């Protein structure tokens, strides 16, 4: 895939280099919202979580969630999620275990499966899906003109089916439980942004009072040696000479100081530049893998090669999964045409178990051996209804150039990331946490030192204006979770603006934030080119167009 170089701040996730470039993932750019966040509304804490394809309950989010729920232990809490709570797999099991420690979580709301599911109770959390617990006269919400309403009252939770045509509000489920709903506790915010070294974010709270900055350590793991570590692990192709050279500005903008440089001494249209073999491990227990994935290694690894070749040369990354006896389990490749600049070639090798997706059901005999083998980018998948889990113990990675001439030069770097959340950064071989952390916010600079994964440091920052820019620089994993905590009357969404002052409900707006150019460039201007404003206490919702 071609490296997106069109806008400095926005990344087309899964542009794998979005975090290399210190850019902002697309969804966060579109919504203006943090990676994960929580807010109080009428005495209830709502948590907006981060999960989706191959991003299921990674340890950094569970650490954040554990601390959040500890601090709000006596507050009725609702988790909003895409993936369901009953998923099979170690990651979902870790979430269920965590929620078991916090009985104030009374609701877990999900979607994903496009169908109703029962209102299961995990611990004290009722699992409610967007399609309710049954179809209405055989019809889903949008087919039958109904939708699901959740009601939290002082001593009861109710789930309704709202029929729009008849105006009926039909009780689907009622659960007696004391809640902390009240008329005053609204506007406490926890806004956590997963950021990479040199990246920028903006405060979406209209005006944050009593603000704290809390920064969490995040781990990153990478399996291949970089050019300044060990050239010996790489095997150069025939007719190719290989050396390590200092990188130019284009590489350095990605945080890469040294690259391998291959010179083609003899070529006939196609040349193997270099190859390397790295050990991998795939978990074979279906209950551990499930659909949610394993806690550490065992579900997916992602090779990511960056290469720079003469224009029109085709670059190919071949990935062979090898079993311990040397036999090949799978082979796939990704290919791209060079435009003379850095090209990213991303693949993925992994599996998930689809025999059953829920801990509440057992696989039927005809599905009991249903594994999905993933390849290329995780979306290119092969389902085998009668198959085995992956058994590979090694990946052989080979970079090839097609249509290349004698004397041509190819520069490259290779990375392999185990499933650590998809936030790729240019780290050496090994496992690293956040080091030498510096956050600049509101014109102030905070040095937060080294942070182990799951650990945090915090500082008081007083008041923070809406749209205020903050930046992260760090080493080690080159990742950190930067959290703003405080109280606000309103929350901005989509294209954020700088706020000069707020007096009652009178806002003096400043400039729109620097993402405005990105919105125009990506064609989002006509759709959502403006700022949504949610006055939390009053419930007002306005939209302020940019133009």
């Amino acid at each position, binding site marked *: 895939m071609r490296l997106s170089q069109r806008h400095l701040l926005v990344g087309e996730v899964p542009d794998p280099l979005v975090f290399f470039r210190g850019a902002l993932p697309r969804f966060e750019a579109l919504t203006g919202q943090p990676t994960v966040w929580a807010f109080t*509304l009428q005495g209830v804490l709502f948590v907006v979580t981060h999960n989706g*394809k191959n991003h299921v309950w990674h340890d950094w989010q569970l650490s954040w969630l554990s601390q959040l729920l500890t601090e709000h232990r006596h507050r009725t809490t609702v988790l*909003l999620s895409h993936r369901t709570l009953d998923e099979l797999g170690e990651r979902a099991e870790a979430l269920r275990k965590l929620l078991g420690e916090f009985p104030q979580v009374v609701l877990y709301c999900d*979607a994903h499966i496009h169908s109703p599911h029962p209102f299961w109770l995990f611990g004290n959390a009722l699992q409610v899906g967007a399609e309710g617990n049954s179809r209405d006269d055989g019809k889903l919400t*949008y087919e039958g003109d109904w939708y699901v309403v959740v009601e*939290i*009252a002082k001593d009861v939770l109710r789930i309704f089916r709202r029929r729009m045509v008849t105006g009926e509000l039909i009780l689907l489920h009622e659960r007696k439980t004391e809640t902390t709903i009240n008329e005053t506790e609204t506007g406490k915010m926890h806004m956590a942004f997963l950021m990479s070294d040199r990246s920028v974010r903006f405060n979406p709270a209209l005006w944050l009072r009593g603000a704290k900055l809390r920064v969490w350590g995040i781990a990153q793991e990478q399996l291949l040696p970089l050019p300044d570590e060990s050239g010996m692990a790489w095997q150069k192709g025939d007719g190719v000479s290989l050396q390590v050279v200092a990188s130019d500005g284009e590489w350095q903008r990605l945080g890469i100081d040294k690259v391998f440089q291959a010179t083609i001494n003899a070529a006939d249209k196609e040349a193997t530049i270099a190859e390397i073999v790295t050990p991998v491990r795939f978990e074979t227990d279906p209950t551990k893998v499930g659909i949610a994935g394993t806690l550490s290694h065992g579900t997916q690894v992602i090779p990511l090669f960056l290469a720079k070749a003469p224009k029109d040369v085709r670059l190919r990354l071949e990935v062979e999964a090898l079993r311990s006896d040397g036999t090949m389990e799978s082979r796939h490749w990704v290919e791209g045409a060079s435009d003379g600049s850095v090209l990213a070639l991303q693949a993925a090798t992994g599996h998930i178990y689809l025999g059953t997706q829920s801990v509440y059901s057992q696989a039927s005999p005809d599905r009991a051996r249903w594994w999905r083998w993933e390849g290329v980018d995780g979306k290119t998948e092969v389902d085998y209804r009668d198959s085995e889990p992956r058994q590979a113990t090694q990946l052989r990675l080979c970079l090839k150039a097609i249509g290349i001439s004698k004397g041509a030069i190819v520069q490259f770097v290779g990375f392999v990331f185990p499933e650590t959340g998809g936030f790729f950064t240019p780290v050496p071989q090994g496992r690293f946490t956040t080091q030498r952390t510096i956050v600049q916010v509101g014109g102030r600079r905070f040095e937060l030192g080294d942070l182990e994964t799951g650990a945090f440091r915090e500082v008081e920052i007083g008041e923070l204006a809406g749209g205020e820019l903050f930046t992260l620089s760090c080493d080690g994993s080159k990742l950190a979770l930067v959290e703003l905590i405080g109280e606000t009357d309103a929350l901005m969404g989509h294209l954020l603006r700088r706020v000069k002052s707020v007096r009652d409900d009178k806002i003096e707006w400043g400039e729109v934030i620097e993402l405005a150019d990105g919105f125009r460039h990506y064609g989002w201007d006509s759709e959502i080119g403006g700022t949504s404003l949610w006055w939390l206490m009053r419930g007002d919702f306005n*939209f302020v167009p940019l133009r």
Partner: protein
Amino acid sequence: MMATRGLMAVTLTAVLALLGLSTKVAPEKVQPLRFVLQGDLHNFRRVPESYLRRMLKDAKDIGCAFVAFLGDIFNGTKENPMRLSKESPLPLLWQKGDHEFFRRVGTNE
């Protein structure tokens, strides 16, 4: 106003207790908090825009505080469901899902 009512209730309870009497003071009424769940819009390919616009208006009419769209907002066409924010009568909350990690807005990649 609420604080005054609360103080009166506490005072009444205290006076009755001093007189050796007991009573139950009715708790203050707090309006229930309602919100809507919807999800898997898939660029309006699965959940039509016309239905959603009617749903937003109806949810406002029955006193819902917000609508939570629980992921898989995008997929398949060039439509962008977040444009609902422009004319929504009540707050919209956008949760990411599987398709928000796929390649491009407006495609199935």
